[in-house]
C-alpha cells in the first residue's frame, strides 16, 4: 500500500451544514489503494502559515468513478483556506495513509458508532460492506443543528439509530447507550467507532465488559503523517511500547491502546 503524493482535482464541493464541507476529489491513484478508515494529509497552501499538512479522514471511495471524498469542519486558518478552494483547483494530497483501517474481516454482524464530526470516517465501511453483513449504525450529535449524513447512513445501514444529546432530533441521549441496549440481543460481533474521546472511552469499556472487539479511530496532533517523526504516539499496552497513530493506526483494536 504505497503512499502517494498527488495534486488531485477538486471536482465537487458541498457545504453540508455551517462550517462543514464535503470535497470530492478525482484521483485514480488515491482511489486505487484507499481503504475505509484511512486518512489523507493535505497541504492547504504553499504558504508557510499554516505550516503543517492537515490530516483528514477519507469519507468515501468511489472506485467506479475514481472519486475519493473527505469531509472536514472549518476550525482554524488551515481548514478555512481549504474550504475556500474552488472546483477545478488541485489539492496537494499525501495519502492514503494508515495501516490500521476499518476492516470488516469475516464479521457478519457489526455495530458502527460515530459521534459528531467522527461519523464521516465510518461511512465507507458501512457503504462498502457486503450484503450479507448486518451493519447496525448508531450516530450521536450534540443537537439537531449539527446532524449530518443522516440519509446516507440510513440508506447504507441494516439498522440505524440517530441520537442527539439534547433530544432536539432523533432519539434522546447518547448513541452509546442505545448500542449498549442492543448489543446482546443483536449478537454484535465487532464494534467500529469514531468520535469524541468520551465516546471512544465508553466504547472501549463496553468492549472490555462484553469481550466484543472494538475498533477505534484515533486522532492526534501529527507531524509527518507517515510514521517518520513519531509525533502521534499512542501506548500499545500489549506491546508495552508506543504505536504511531498515523502509521499503525489510525484505527486500533480498543484493547491494544491506552486512551
Amino acid at each position, binding site marked *: 500500500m504505497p503512499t502517494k503524493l498527488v495534486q488531485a482535482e477538486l471536482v465537487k464541493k458541498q457545504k453540508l451544514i455551517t462550517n462543514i464541507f464535503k470535497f470530492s476529489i478525482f484521483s485514480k491513484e488515491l482511489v486505487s489503494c484507499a481503504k475505509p478508515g484511512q486518512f489523507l494529509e493535505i497541504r492547504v497552501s504553499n504558504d508557510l502559515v499554516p505550516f503543517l499538512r492537515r490530516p483528514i479522514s477519507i469519507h468515501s471511495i468511489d472506485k467506479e468513478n475514481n472519486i475519493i471524498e473527505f469531509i472536514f469542519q472549518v476550525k482554524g486558518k488551515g481548514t478555512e483556506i481549504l474550504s475556500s478552494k474552488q472546483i477545478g483547483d488541485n489539492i496537494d494530497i499525501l495519502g492514503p495513509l494508515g495501516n490500521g483501517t476499518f476492516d470488516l474481516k469475516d464479521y457478519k454482524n457489526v455495530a458502527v458508532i460515530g459521534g459528531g464530526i467522527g461519523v464521516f470516517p465510518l461511512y465507507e465501511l458501512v457503504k462498502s460492506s457486503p450484503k450479507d453483513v448486518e451493519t447496525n449504525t448508531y450516530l450521536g450529535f450534540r443537537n439537531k443543528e449539527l446532524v449530518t449524513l443522516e440519509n446516507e447512513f440510513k440508506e447504507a445501514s441494516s439498522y440505524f439509530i440517530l441520537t442527539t444529546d439534547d433530544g432536539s432530533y432523533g432519539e434522546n441521549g447518547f448513541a452509546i447507550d442505545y448500542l449498549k441496549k442492543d448489543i446482546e440481543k443483536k449478537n454484535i460481533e465487532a464494534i467500529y467507532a469514531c468520535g469524541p474521546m468520551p465516546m471512544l472511552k465508553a466504547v472501549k469499556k463496553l468492549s472490555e465488559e462484553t469481550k466484543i472487539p472494538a475498533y477505534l479511530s484515533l486522532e492526534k496532533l501529527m507531524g509527518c503523517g507517515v510514521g517518520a517523526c513519531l*509525533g502521534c504516539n499512542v501506548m500499545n499496552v500489549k506491546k508495552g511500547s508506543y504505536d504511531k497513530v498515523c502509521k499503525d493506526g489510525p484505527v486500533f483494536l480498543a484493547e491494544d491502546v491506552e486512551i
Partner: protein
Amino acid sequence: MNTQINFAGIKMKNPVTVASGTFGYGREYSEIFDLSKLGAVITKGTSYKPKMGNKNPRVCETTAGMLNAIGLENPGVDYFIENDLPFLKKFDTAIIVNAFGGTGGTIQDYVNVCEVLNKLDIDGVELNLSCPNVKAGCLAYGTTYEGVKEITTAVRKVLTSKPLIIKLTPNITDITIPAKAAEDAGADAISLINTLTAMKIDINTRKPILANNTGGLSGPAIKPVAVRMVYQASKAVKIPVMGLGGIMNGDDAIEFMLAGASCISIGAGNFVDPLCSIKTIEGIENYMKKYNIEDINEIIGGVQMN
C-alpha cells in the same frame, strides 16, 4: 557542473541531507521518492538500548514552524542493525547514524552505542548533544566547552573508523564555544542548529500543548537564527559545518552554504512537502546554472560581510 561534496570524509553526491528525527530510518519516505537521490540520510537518534520517548502530544504547529518533544524514542541499535541498516544499504546514498546516550545519558552510554556503530557499514556518526526534550544527556553536555569536549573525546576514542559529527544546540549564549570544543576534541565536523527550546500554551485549557511542556522549535521561523549561528561557528573552527534550521528550498540551502555550511539538512520541511529535499537539490542546481557556478564547493562560506 559538480554538486558532489566530501564532508569530513563522507562522500555525498550533493550537499542535501535529511535531518535526524524528521526522516525515521528512511523507510516511509522511500515510498515517495528514491533515497539514492539524496546526499545522505541521517537516521533517527539511536541509542544502545531501545528508548520509549515522551507522552503524547509530542508535536504542535506554531507560526511558520512547529514544536516537537518526541524524547528520542527509538528501537535501539540492535534493531537498527537487523532491520533498518540492510534496508538503507539498498540505496546509493551516504548513511549517517545519529547517536545518543539513551535513557541513562551517561558518557558510557554514548560510548556504548558508538562502539557498535564503529564496526558497521555506515558512512558517519552524528552525535546528538543538543536534544532539548530528554531528561538525561544531550544538553547536559552540549552547552559547555568542558561538556562537549569530554564526551567528544570519549566517543572519539571508540569511534576510530567513522567520521564524527557533533550536533550543536542553539540554546546557548555563544555557539562558537561548543563548536571549538568539538574541534579540539577531535570531531571531524559539526552540525547545527538543533531546535530552540520553546513552549506553546493552550489559553483555553491553560496547559502547555505538549505533554513534555516544552519542546524544540523548528521551521522557517527560526532560519535567521540558524544562518547566524552557522556563520559564527564556521568562522570559529576549521572542520566543516552541516547547516540546518528551517530550510525549505534551494535558495535557503544556498543561504546556509554562503554562510559557511558545506552541506545542509532538510528537517521539518520533509513534513510539509515530502519532496522538499529533492526540490532543494534542483533549486541548488538552478542557482548554480544561473550564476555559472561550476562546482558547488566554490560557494561554501562565500558570504561577503558588509
